[in-house]
């Protein structure tokens, strides 16, 4: 039986978090929005699975970063904002950046993160659950999506993501397919 060896969830070092906090928010938000729109087009089930929550305002709060991401699926016309404070949202999903990325990539189980208190949900629990289930089914690969948007730099971007993943233990891409039993 394989070992249950899920490591402790890594945290963004404070110095790096402070540096990321200095990034101009509008260009970061635009880049994120472009990526998420592309993902939504590639995975139409993502919006469909949100059902009645597809116009909710999701506040994604990486607790080890000095900003939050506001995601509005808006029925498929996705909008993304980056703000300094959580502000008003339908629901807030908070946890270390590595936990949120691990959820996106299927590296972590949302319920297990909730049990261990690494993940906090506030506001509309049903909306948060719908988003989590929709994302889990979409089998998203963020590094792959960013690489595809990087044109001639796709190869270096992928390699850089791979190195960063190995060095930090943070899930930056969808894990390799498990071989058939």
């Amino acid at each position, binding site marked *: 039986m*394989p070992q249950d060896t899920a490591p402790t969830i890594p945290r963004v070092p404070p110095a790096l978090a402070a540096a990321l906090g200095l990034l101009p928010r509008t260009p970061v938000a635009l880049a994120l929005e472009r990526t998420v729109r592309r993902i939504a087009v590639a995975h139409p089930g993502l919006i469909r699975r949100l059902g009645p929550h597809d116009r909710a305002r999701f506040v994604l709060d990486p607790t080890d970063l000095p900003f939050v991401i506001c995601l509005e699926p808006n029925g498929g016309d996705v909008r993304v904002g980056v703000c300094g404070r959580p502000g008003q949202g339908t629901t807030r999903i908070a946890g270390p950046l590595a936990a949120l990325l691990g959820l996106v990539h299927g590296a972590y189980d949302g319920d297990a993160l909730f*049990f261990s208190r690494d993940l906090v949900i506030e506001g509309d629990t049903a909306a948060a659950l719908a988003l989590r289930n929709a994302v889990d089914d979409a089998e998203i690969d963020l590094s792959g999506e960013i690489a595809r948007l990087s044109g001639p730099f796709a190869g270096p971007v992928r390699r850089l993501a791979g190195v960063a993943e190995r060095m930090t233990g943070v899930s930056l891409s969808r894990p390799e397919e498990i071989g058939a039993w």
Partner: protein
Amino acid sequence: MVMEIVCPAGTPAALRTAVQAGAHTIYCGFADETNARNFPGLNFSREEMAEGVAFAHAHGAKVLVAINTFPRAGAETLWHAAVADAEAAGADAVILADLGLLAHAARHHPGLRRHLSVQAAAANADAINFYGREFGVRRVVLPRVLSVSEIAAINAETGVETEVFVFGGLCVMAEGRCSLSSWATGESPNMNGVCSPASHVKYREEGGALSSTLGGFTINRVAAGKPAPYPTLCKGVFRAGTAEGHLFEDPVSLDAAALMPALRDAGVTALKIEGRQRSRAYVGQVVRAFRAAVDALEAGREVPSGLLTRLTEGGATTTGAYKKTWR
């Protein structure tokens, strides 16, 4: 005979993960109130079900479709359509709980194998044999209230296959009859397919402590750093006289891996993993672990256990009623 591993899938991605992790069989449901995990963002459309069945069959695995809520009077067509659509999708069996739906399936879909859901709470040989005789039920999922010796006694008195839970959420209520969720929210797993619906759940963090409310009732408050339980009434904290605590049920998960040899000797056909509401990360890890355990058992090797604690509620496991140490 090798015990069959029956694995949960709440989404097509989880189904593919389960198949690739070594599941013999996957159970799943349609995205409506016909199944007992009717959660936001979860479950299968008709098209996804057909694709999932085709994928599983191509890899030598089976698919069971859970249609295990109780139809509302006057709305039976939704449940009847689910049975017909499961058959059309190529499902290997349907998992049913309601007497009327069992009768309908037996009459109109005689070629479709029928399993009895745990929601039917059939916990003795007489009840199981009734379902076998009257509705052609071929397998029963046993409630999580029986000891291994009681399961062995049932198997000695019935020709209906038995399937038992070995891992995941632990429900110790009379399943299909529990009214705790509907008392607090008006919705239940039995009728609406959801226990403690997320739309009625609120979490609040104050000073590091996490409060959970269900239908406006505060049912739990855990201190900073302590594990959080599911927001179900059965795992809430209650005050009775001077005592305060988990009066119904502790927030722990079932892990009966260590009992697999005993369950095999008791005549169990299939081992069920709970968790259609869980992610593909959970499905992959748990299925892979239990498939390895079944293979170890068949090869005469020791069956390891207790290796999935990180995925469990409360970070703790129990063998539940299989070993009734309180008796």
